[in-house]
């Protein structure tokens, strides 16, 4: 088992902003999972994972002077997720999870994206451990929201990628 799976998010920020969509070839997802991922290079990437692996998402911009950050990764539960909802969905009513330690900050965490009074998503590291309770063979789709600069229309998302336990 690979200890880590990297998912790279390739983004044409100018194309996405002018098309107002991450489709039309403005986004491409590629991972390095050895376990048989599907739809490499498309927004419909299904990444094959196993419990205990660390999955990390990294955005890369094709134009080096355009800002491209991940705004949120929200796993979809089957019902539609309203946009800009809470980022974290704790599994409800299951005391057995999480089986991996979650470090809690010793002091109250400052705003996770606060940088000298400005919102800086470059501070966020998008990675987490695949939980044991994940059901094999079922794609867990997630909403990937990207932030391109900071205006009112800067956040775009897709609901098509997924993790799949093999």
């Amino acid at each position, binding site marked *: 088992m690979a200890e880590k799976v990297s998912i790279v998010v390739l983004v044409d920020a100018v194309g996405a902003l002018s098309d107002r969509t991450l489709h039309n070839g403005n986004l491409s997802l590629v991972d390095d999972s050895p376990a048989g991922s599907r739809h490499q290079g498309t927004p419909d990437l299904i990444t094959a994972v196993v419990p205990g692996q*660390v*999955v990390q998402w*990294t*955005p*890369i*911009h094709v134009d*080096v*002077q*355009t*800002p*491209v*950050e*991940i705004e949120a*990764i929200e*796993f*979809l*539960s*089957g019902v539609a997720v309203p946009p800009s909802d809470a*980022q*974290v*969905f704790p*599994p*409800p*009513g299951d005391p057995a*999870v*999480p*089986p*991996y*330690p*979650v*470090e*809690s*900050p010793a002091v109250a*965490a400052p705003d*996770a994206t606060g*940088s*000298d*009074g*400005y919102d*800086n998503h*470059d*501070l*966020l*590291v*998008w*990675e*987490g*451990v*695949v*939980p044991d*309770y*994940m*059901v094999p063979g*079922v*794609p*867990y*789709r997630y909403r990937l929201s990207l932030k391109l*600069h*900071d205006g009112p229309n800067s956040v775009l998302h897709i609901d098509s990628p997924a*993790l799949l336990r093999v």
Partner: protein
Amino acid sequence: MAQQHGIIVLFDVENALRTRSLDGNTYWFDNMKFLGSVGEGTGQLVTIVPGTYFLDGSQATEQVLNWLPAALGAIPPTVPRNYLAEQERAHDRRTLEQLAALGGDGEVSSTEVSRLQQRVGRRPRKQAGGRGLTAAKLLDVTGKATSSAAAYNYPAPVITDITGQAVSEKIIYPAQYGSPDMVYDGWYWAATVDTSRPGVYPYTMHVQLHELVEQNDELVWQSVDLTCESSLKITSDPKRNAFTGAGLGVLPLPAAPPAG
């Protein structure tokens, strides 16, 4: 992923040459206002450089600065770089055609000849040791050859060095690099940044402008070296896990697999 910084420095060349100073004759503009740069479009730009570090203290984001000079009154950067040479050649060709046409009549008026002589224009010399200029005919703002020193295009300003506190304290490591982009004559200045020491660090940009002077009955591009200042504001914040707000944890998958 943090983007690279673009810092445009726009020069009022004519006024700078007249006053022999860049004070009030530069307009700075960068792409980092949304993260805290201040003074966009003025001579007092402070460029924000938001550094990040991992919990072990190591630098997490590589910040890259790119400086792009531009000039008021120069040929717009959107025009192909061989514009001057092309215009010069086309102009010479037309003049030769007209000269040939004159010769056919047998009788050539001296006024016609002197009109054509004026059309030939003038080719200023490059000053010995001058940088960044290729010898070309003097063209006016409409792209026609001119022999009048009053009606020419200023060559684009050339950055010759970047120094100052930010450099001497090893906050930035500027250097000039070759570039395939002929908009900037195939060269550009860039720097990487050590973001581990937050603070405001001024730096000095050394710029060469070119002034057309009459010397021994000849036009010469004389270089004029001037300096201007700007600042970098370095900040540094720790990277955090986006799901937990702190360290690594499990992915927030729903407890039950999604329906369908």
